[in-house]
């Protein structure tokens, strides 16, 4: 079987996807990026190939994206995350016109034209507020795992307003709420609302045309998605395998580049 490989070496995690000629995922793998994303990527490729029963050297082509893309020598070519997320999301949700990706250290809103080409995009500027890392820091301050945030959000009666957009100051704010005995559920809902409002600020620059698809690790947090949907007054679709959308897009690009003879 012919296979194509996509890698997303992000700031927090590394994702690897193998697809077949129809664009279906046949293997995938994910691990924390640690301090050496490219070597983690190498291990994940070996694992994914073993899972799919494919020899690495027989993979037809590969594309790498994410912050580690420039330093990763084992891929045939590289592409920006914007291009890859757009392609991956459009493949999963063919009617998608807006992609909201919230990764470890950046959040982005991508507008697609009818043909699925990137027509505009906006990214957070030099600040981690409104990213996955922001939630990790807050979860730690609350004594929670990131995976527990959604369940707690569901218990909140009223979100507690979080006014700081800076990760460090927001953490201080969380701690002071805790010190005053504010229940954690309300704080969690407040944090989700703060990220949602930050993301909507970005969306305001490029528009929020339905169908809206949310990708990236934070899309797996149902509490955040609910906060975003209610703030935006629009239905938010969560991509299947949300964390793998960038890597899937990269694999699809590898497949397409072959077709274009590049």
């Amino acid at each position, binding site marked *: 079987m012919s296979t194509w490989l996509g890698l997303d070496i992000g700031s927090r995690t590394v994702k690897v996807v193998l697809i077949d000629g129809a664009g279906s995922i046949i293997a995938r793998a994910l691990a924390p990026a640690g301090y050496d994303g490219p070597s983690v990527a190498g291990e994940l490729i070996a694992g994914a190939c073993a899972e799919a029963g494919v020899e690495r050297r027989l993979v037809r082509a590969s594309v790498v994206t994410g912050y580690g893309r420039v330093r990763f020598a084992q891929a045939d070519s590289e*592409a920006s995350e914007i291009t890859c997320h757009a392609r991956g999301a459009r493949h999963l949700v063919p009617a998608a016109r807006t992609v909201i990706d919230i990764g470890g250290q950046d959040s982005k809103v991508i507008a697609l034209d009818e043909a699925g080409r990137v027509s505009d995009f906006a990214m957070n500027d030099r600040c981690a507020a409104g990213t996955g890392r922001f939630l990790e820091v807050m979860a730690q301050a609350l004594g929670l795992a990131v995976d527990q945030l959604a369940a707690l959000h569901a218990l909140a009666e009223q979100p507690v307003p979080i006014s700081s957009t800076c990760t460090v100051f927001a953490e201080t704010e969380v701690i002071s709420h805790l010190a005053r005995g504010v229940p954690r559920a309300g704080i969690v809902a407040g944090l989700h609302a703060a990220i949602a409002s930050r993301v909507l600020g970005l969306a305001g620059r490029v528009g929020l045309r339905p169908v809206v698809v949310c990708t990236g690790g934070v899309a797996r947090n149902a509490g955040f998605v609910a906060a975003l949907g209610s703030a935006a007054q629009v239905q938010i679709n969560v991509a299947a395998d949300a964390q793998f959308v960038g890597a899937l897009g990269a694999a699809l690009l590898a497949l397409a580049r072959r077709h274009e003879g590049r």
Partner: protein
Amino acid sequence: MARNYPRLESGGELTRLMIEHYGQALGRQGGLPVAWVTSGAPVELLRAMDVLPVYPENYAAVCASQGAVPLCEAAERLGYSRDLCAYARISIGAAAIGDDAPFAGLGRPDLLVACNNICGTVVKWFQALAQRFAVPLFILDTPFLPDDTINEHALAYVAGQLEDLVRWLERRAARRLDRARLADVLALSNETVALWRDIRGLCRAHPSPLSVPDLFVTMAPIVSLRGTPEAVAFYRMLHSEAEQRVRQGVSAVAGERFRLLWDNIAIWPRIYHFFSQFPRRGACFVADTYTGAWDTEVEAGEPLEALARTYLGIFLNHSLAHRAERMAQLIGEYACDGFVMHANRSCKPFSLGQPVARRLVTDATGVPGLLFEADMADPRAYAEEAIAARVQAFLEALDGRAS
């Protein structure tokens, strides 16, 4: 990194010219009084009175291209905020550390002339310099043009101040304004401005003979030496070099595929590094909103009124709508495929409203625009990875539109 654009032959002459200019300013050749001025000051009056104008903004840009963090920090130690314009911080920081500043500093001014047509920061910045050096300061106040027209009140107000400026200079510099000399300087200034406009206009050619980074590098004389025979001679040389490139089909960027418009001041600390991302993908900046700030000749007629009109009418003293229209016009004239806006932390008047302007320009032209944050002079505001990701995504999207 290999250069993928041809070097300008005029570059050597430019270096010689600017070294001579700063040598004059620092060495006080001929004993001329030195006035530190803002980039939008009516320098023709000073030149006509043999007052040597020196530009802290230009000095700051030169320092920035060599790394000006220590100068910024020197100003910050004095209590100036990091949010203050980096040119102001570099200038104040350089004054504070004296001989340790690049080129042993900018020396001392005898006079200061600030015109607020470019921003409000210059007023406080030059007041700080006036205090430090204990020298007199003249502030020329040019009202903002919210409806983009120069009304009679504004004109009379500024022309009146120019009369005051002449008297002030006559007293401080112990010189009389010679009207015939002023006419000569204005003629030289106009010739420089016309040449510069024509040079920029040559970039309408396909492929473009020059790119905006070339203009950034060669703009120093239009700012600092406007109204001198040396500036005219230099721009004649650059004009003929660019014209020759057009005739021979020499391009600034090999394999020009995309033509772009640049908005805002350059990123001096990373100018080559930043702009090298574009030629690699066949993208050439063919026009910009910054180097065109010096493209209005002083009209014939009563010279002070004509100067008032010119210095009131500069780009940054206009409304956002006007600036967006101008960008759309440039995109049409230069056949641009997209535009890139530098949200410059330092320069608030240039950067405020850019998200709105971006939308207006795209609505008017149909071409996409990239907006990203950096700074003209403070490298600490430059986020390497984040900027590279945006630029790459933008160029990939242009590629996608083209295919």
